[in-house]
């Protein structure tokens, strides 16, 4: 049984890598922006207002949504193909060999969890901010929403759990995309992996610090 796929496996992986890279860049921007809220809540508000529902922010959002869609679509296609490739009789016993990360084998699961978290997050923020503005409702204030949400334990814990999942996804994803586009080499193999971990950790720390800050040491506690 053979079939000719439209795109080669490597091309599909390239798409995953490029869209993944955009995701990482976006997260870096988003994280930095969030972190500003610790340094200066006013500046953070300024950024929120600057973005708002202005055309460039909407275009960027649509672009991001498109890239995310591609990433998800190809992630699902690849996973499906991979599942079928094993055949329908599976191993009875398998062992994870040394040097193989747990996350690398569970990117789909991690992706789905991220997506679920994202739904919550979009509802909490984007729906009430940019989307509200677009449909003509009064958008809520970003910093107040942050303060409100993270003063609740369950929201904070949910978000922190979500960030752990995100870290796992990124810890594999960042260096993995370098491998997929062919930038890896024997010499750089270890280095890229370390750089990948560092990038993933830095990004996630930006997000985590905001939650911790507003949850545990919230100076504006009401």
């Amino acid at each position, binding site marked *: 049984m053979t*079939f000719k796929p439209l795109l080669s496996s*490597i091309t599909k992986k390239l798409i995953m890598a490029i869209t993944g890279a955009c995701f990482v860049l976006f997260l870096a921007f988003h994280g930095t922006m969030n972190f500003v809220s610790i340094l200066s809540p006013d500046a953070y508000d300024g950024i929120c207002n600057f973005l708002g529902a202005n055309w460039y922010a909407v275009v960027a959002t649509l672009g991001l949504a498109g890239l995310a869609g591609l990433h998800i679509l190809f992630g699902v296609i690849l996973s499906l193909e991979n599942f079928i490739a*094993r055949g329908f009789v599976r191993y009875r016993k*398998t062992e994870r060999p040394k*040097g193989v990360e747990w996350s*690398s084998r569970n990117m789909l699961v991690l992706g789905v969890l991220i997506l679920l978290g994202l739904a919550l997050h979009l509802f909490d923020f984007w729906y009430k901010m940019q989307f509200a503005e677009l449909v003509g409702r009064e958008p809520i204030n970003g910093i107040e929403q942050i303060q409100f949400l993270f003063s609740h334990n369950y929201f904070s814990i949910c978000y922190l759990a979500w960030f752990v999942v995100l870290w796992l996804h990124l810890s594999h994803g960042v260096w*993995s995309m370098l491998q997929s*586009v*062919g930038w*890896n080499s024997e010499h750089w193999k270890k280095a890229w992996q370390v750089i990948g971990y560092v990038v993933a950790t830095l990004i996630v720390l930006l997000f985590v610090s905001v939650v911790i800050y507003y949850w545990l040491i919230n100076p504006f506690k009401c």
Partner: protein
Amino acid sequence: MNFTLKIWRQANRTAKGHFVDYNVSDISPDASFLEMLDILNEQLVLKGEEPVYFDHDCREGICGACSLFINGRPHGKGEGTTTCQLYMRKFKDGETITVEPFRSRAFPVIKDLTVDRSAFDKIIQAGGYVSCHTGGVPDGNAIPVPKADADRAMDAAACIGCGACVAACKNSSAMLFVAAKVSQFALLPQGKVESARRAQAMVAKMDELGFGNCSNTYACQAVCPKHISVSNIARLNREFLCGKIVSPLRKEQ
């Protein structure tokens, strides 16, 4: 030493398979895994039962014929070894050992533990060679090859085509196998000439035969009996993607 074996038995390509338990006793710790199976088979034959069919040949770890999935790992535990070089002293006395065939849609089971790996031959046939013909070639020393490149080409060329990479990969991807061959030739001036074309042809064939996609788990490298590195996969990606961009340009010229 005594062992309980859980072995996959399947009469032929279309039959439904199942696990059967066997006990073997008084096995020397110096016996190889395949010699242990020989002993089991001799007992089965004497009892009038059908012996367990498995691929094997050189029993020196180089022909790539042996292929068992032992206790959840291709070629069993032990780094850089094939099943034929796995010795029973690596197991605990009284241990239960699960023996399965390599599982991949591209490697259908033929009988018991024997699988059809002709897909690998088909990938090589698609382009895994330098297209020179016999005779009419320059002197061996006419084109110098940097030692480092020759050594790296050799490391990639050490692949024995056993299929452990496919068996271990959760996606059943053959990327390490393809990458090893593409790398070997991409690193040598003799093979570089048609490197882009080779990568395209071999990857297309690999996809067509139903192997999965690489998701960079590096399980292949971890189980490879010849320690083929995943950096070869990066090189394959590079050769492939550059080829995708460069070869249409070349055609236009």
